[in-house]
């Protein structure tokens, strides 16, 4: 049983580019190099034109909360110790169908499990921040209205 935080496998060939951009503080979406179709999650082939060529398009890092949950036990030990905590889905401003799962945080260095849960609201504008965990940079989100 896992006793630590879960982190993404950044060596996954389809998604490595996303995590490399994240480490540089950029929110990127896989985009077809031929036809421009964006796709999330990343995958080898463009579902519109079947091209295998892609590029990583850096987004503004802004979006809105599409939905959210507040998670309670029973959970994996690391998560159970900090519950309840929030998880959100964010729609990207450039393309509302491009969505990212993340957490709302109260500041760039604030843990996701110490967020004021009263702020969670569908439609709230948010902007991305990246938080390091076990060498991986995870996209999390602050309210646009929050002080930095």
């Amino acid at each position, binding site marked *: 049983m*896992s006793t630590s935080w879960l*982190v*993404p*496998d950044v060596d996954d060939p389809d998604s490595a580019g996303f995590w490399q951009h994240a480490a540089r503080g950029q929110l990127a979406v896989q985009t077809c190099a031929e036809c421009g179709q964006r796709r999330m*999650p990343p995958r080898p082939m463009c579902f519109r034109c079947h091209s295998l060529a892609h590029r990583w398009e850096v987004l503004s890092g802004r979006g809105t909360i599409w939905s959210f*949950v507040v998670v309670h036990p029973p959970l994996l030990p690391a998560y159970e110790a900090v519950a309840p905590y929030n998880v959100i889905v964010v729609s990207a401003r450039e393309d509302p169908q491009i969505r990212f799962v*993340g957490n709302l945080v109260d500041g760039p260095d604030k843990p996701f499990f110490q967020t004021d849960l009263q702020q969670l609201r*569908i439609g709230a504008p948010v902007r991305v921040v990246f938080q390091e965990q076990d060498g991986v940079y995870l996209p999390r989100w602050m309210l646009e209205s929050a002080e930095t």
Partner: protein
Amino acid sequence: MEIKDRTAIVGIGQTQFGKGLPDTELSLACQAIAAALDDAGIAPRDVDGLVMFSMENGREVEVARNLGLGAITYFGEVGYGGGAGCAVVGHAAMAVATGQCRVAVAWRARKRAAKSSRPWANVAQRVGGAAQWSRPFGLLRPVDEIAMLTRRYMFEYGATREHLANVALACRKHANRNPQATFYDRPLTREQYMQARWISEPLCLFDNCLETDGALAVVVTSAERARDTRQPPVYIHAFAQSIPPQCQPMTNYFCEDPLRGPAWDCAQLLWSKSDFQPKDVRVAQIYDAFTPLILLSLEGYGFCGRGEGGPFTENGALEWPDGRLPINTSGGGLSEAYVHGFNLILEGVRQMRGTSTCQVPDAPCCLVTSGEGVPTSALLLRRAT
């Protein structure tokens, strides 16, 4: 070629439901299949088809060796967990209807009551594939994944916790009449529901299915042979499956319309193959790992319009005996047992035989559905006339 009414379920069998049963999943599977063959009055040597869940731990060869089956000429499996229940029965029906076998068995055996057996308890620290986009953020369990869709659904359509409670209470009332149900002797009140602890807001404890050890099986053969078996045949009138475009199982947040799940496309094929339409259906067994799946499925299978699943549940509509559409009349996954929805199929058969503990009189057919939120399947069962 159509399979409509060309095959029938002629035997059903199940083990006891429990927590921490000593038997292995293979042993439970064999017990349920043996009971189903006995119910049908069909000898094990006559079985020549096997269809199972990809997640099954006991394999076909082991099942065949334990039960002393004859030569198996058709075997196959279907993936995606709770989406596979109606599909394995449907594949059995197609195999019999096309002559690839004459007597097919489909089953599910599952030991999930122990906390250590839950899949989210055994993940590696590094997560790849689809899970890397959700698990690192603490979206760990199936309930968290469905709660995310539920919150959005409530926001878009105004569904409430009262609507979710209507589902939980209907299933519990039905379980309270079924001596085989885990919650046979445990009533549930609306107050208990509203005061229950959260699991993943907006979902509370009673929005979640049980976790159960147990197994269930069905025997499928041709309509001709079904006339000579021990039980009244229950015809497989229509069958459908679906993986909608851009579907991502459970975390279906990345497509154009996440709240239009696999049920919609499955329903379109099912009703196109059927002599019955939703208005003709008076009893249904709808997959209920979580209460909101019922609201989505009511919409997807055409019992109400988009966004109307919540109001549909009002005024006892889902409750036996007087509701417009009694669902999960043995208690379902929420209150009878959660065996990946396979108990819903057996209850559909009992409704068509006239042996349910919440029997709907003279219903001509029964809809049975499998997991919403994953690649899914559905059956329309028809009563012998």
